[in-house]
């Protein structure tokens, strides 16, 4: 059997999604971003929406998302992606408009934009990567940083008197009448990846059906920021993040 015999379409069990650009990613080993990017690329392809997609990138590690997915992108100012997406979707209602944001972007500096876009029920999807830390700027405390969790701006662990409580913004967004689908997923196991893919697809379908705002939170790891190996990060996430941010649908209308 030659190599050419093996590389045969009939034997194909897995391929890179065509919408993924063939460039090296800047994400650290073990980071959840790459997996979520791949899922988005697959879904846009499955839905045949490449020509109709306007994606909004955040400030944070996800800022370079526009390098990896072969669709039109706008990179928003820090936290403002839901406002940018609001205008794009209102002016081009037949487009698939989604934001891709981290916890600092969505739940700290952009809280107002997030809440009001959701409250207006903008027909957009929000993909929310929650790793409890500011990855890009070097591991500072985020609004979602857990109690006692160490970061470069909470070197002895987050305390309530100094920093307040971890913000469960997804739970908050589920309360708003403008949201139609609010779910929390993860990508640490194959089963979880499959569930997340279904969730993102549902969010995209909702926005095209004009049902309101959909939020898919992906509880994620940040090996570099957490200063753990990728494997230990996954274990730590299951043990510590999941109790604070339990997986599952918070709203599904």
């Amino acid at each position, binding site marked *: 059997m030659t190599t050419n015999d093996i590389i045969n379409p009939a034997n194909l069990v897995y391929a890179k999604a065509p919408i993924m650009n063939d460039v090296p990613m800047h994400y650290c080993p073990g980071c959840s971003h790459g997996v979520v990017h791949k899922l988005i690329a697959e879904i846009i392809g499955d839905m045949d929406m*490449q*020509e*109709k*997609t*306007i994606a*909004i*990138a955040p400030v944070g590690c996800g*800022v370079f998302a*526009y390098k990896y997915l*072969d*669709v*039109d*992108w*706008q*990179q*928003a*100012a820090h936290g*403002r992606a839901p*406002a*940018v*997406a*609001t*205008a*794009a979707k*209102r*002016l*081009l209602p037949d*487009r698939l408009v989604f934001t891709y944001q981290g916890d600092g972007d969505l739940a700290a500096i952009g809280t*107002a*934009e997030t809440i*009001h876009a959701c409250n207006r029920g903008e027909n957009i999807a929000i993909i929310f990567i929650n790793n409890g830390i500011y990855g890009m700027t070097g591991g500072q405390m985020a609004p979602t940083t857990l109690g006692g969790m160490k970061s470069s701006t909470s070197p002895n662990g987050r305390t309530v008197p100094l920093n307040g409580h971890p913000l469960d913004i997804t739970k908050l967004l589920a309360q708003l009448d403008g949201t139609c689908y609010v779910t929390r997923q993860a990508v640490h196991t194959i089963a979880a990846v499959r569930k997340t893919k279904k969730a993102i697809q549902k969010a995209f379908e909702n926005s095209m059906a004009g049902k309101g705002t959909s939020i898919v939170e992906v509880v994620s790891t940040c090996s570099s920021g957490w200063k753990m190996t990728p494997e230990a990060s996954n274990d730590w996430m299951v043990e510590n993040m999941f109790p604070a941010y339990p997986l599952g649908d918070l709203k599904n209308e």
Partner: protein
Amino acid sequence: MSESKKHNTEEVRLMKGNEAIAHAAIRCGCDGYFGYPITPQSEIMETMMELEPWNTTGMVVLQAESETSSINMVYGAAGCGKKSMTSSSSPGVSLMQEGISYIAAGELPCLIVNVMRGGPGLGTIQPSQADYFQAVKGGGHGDYKLITLAPASVQEMADHTVLAFELAFKYRTPAMILADGIIGQMMEKVVLPPFQPRMTEAEIAEKCPWATLGKPAWRKPNIITTLSLDAHEMEETNIRLQAKYREIENNEVLYEEFLCDDAEYLVIGFGTCARVSQKAVEMCRAEGIKVGLLRPITLFPFPTVAISKHADKVKSMLTVEMSAGQMVEDVRLAVNGRVPVEFYGRMGGVVPSPDEVYEVLKSKLVNK
């Protein structure tokens, strides 16, 4: 009254400057307005909401949760090649500076209206021109410029709305209408611009090949971003921006002269101060004192060359502003020490009266 001066009353309307902007925006094919209420310009959004253009032209009008959100909605709309705008007054425009810097960096066309009120801080709601520096020197972070138009009448509020969009799309850069509370709140006669249809998506795709309308298979993705981690790449962006600003300076200067041909003294003012100063000039002329008025219509690009030429002819100049003295710095740069340039200003929402300007003209220029 002579026959020639009679207007066709069907076409001439009476309205506030703020209302004129709303009407003109709808008529010139604006796609989206995003704003947050603040005195003295709330009539802009109120008028649009009353006119409901989404039922006629299809224009989107949305009240945002903040000025921050408004300007970022403008960013999103402009990134799609849509004619989009926001309006606010001084404190709100301060809040927008981040977004304006991004829009300039992203080379997106849009219109920002600032109907200025007295500051700093929450200040007053009365008219001011103290945001001149903010408008023409950048305002937000980084080296960028805004095309800045300074209307002095309700008619110009309408005309400049159309012009600002034209210039913004011509140069792919944000344009600002820098008005003051008086021009926004006063009613005058106005002839509104004719209706022009909104751009179709095909027209946008042709005129704005950079717009994020969704990526067809035949082209590379369009990416609106303002980030370059490579300093040399970022410098290239800056060099391109600066070249564009020089081109704007060469091509787009607008100003108006009143009785300047034989002037021995020159008054310079924009917006309301030009109107007030014109009356003071008339009072001087009635006494045979040869005073002229130069009114910058574009503040960026500034009429540096025109003012420089006058520096060779007049004995001295006076700038009149509702600020502590901002535009006067640009006048002095243009004059470069050849003749004295005096300044008179009122601050915090106080408007100089024609008599005040007349007295200053006599004491600081004529009887010096």
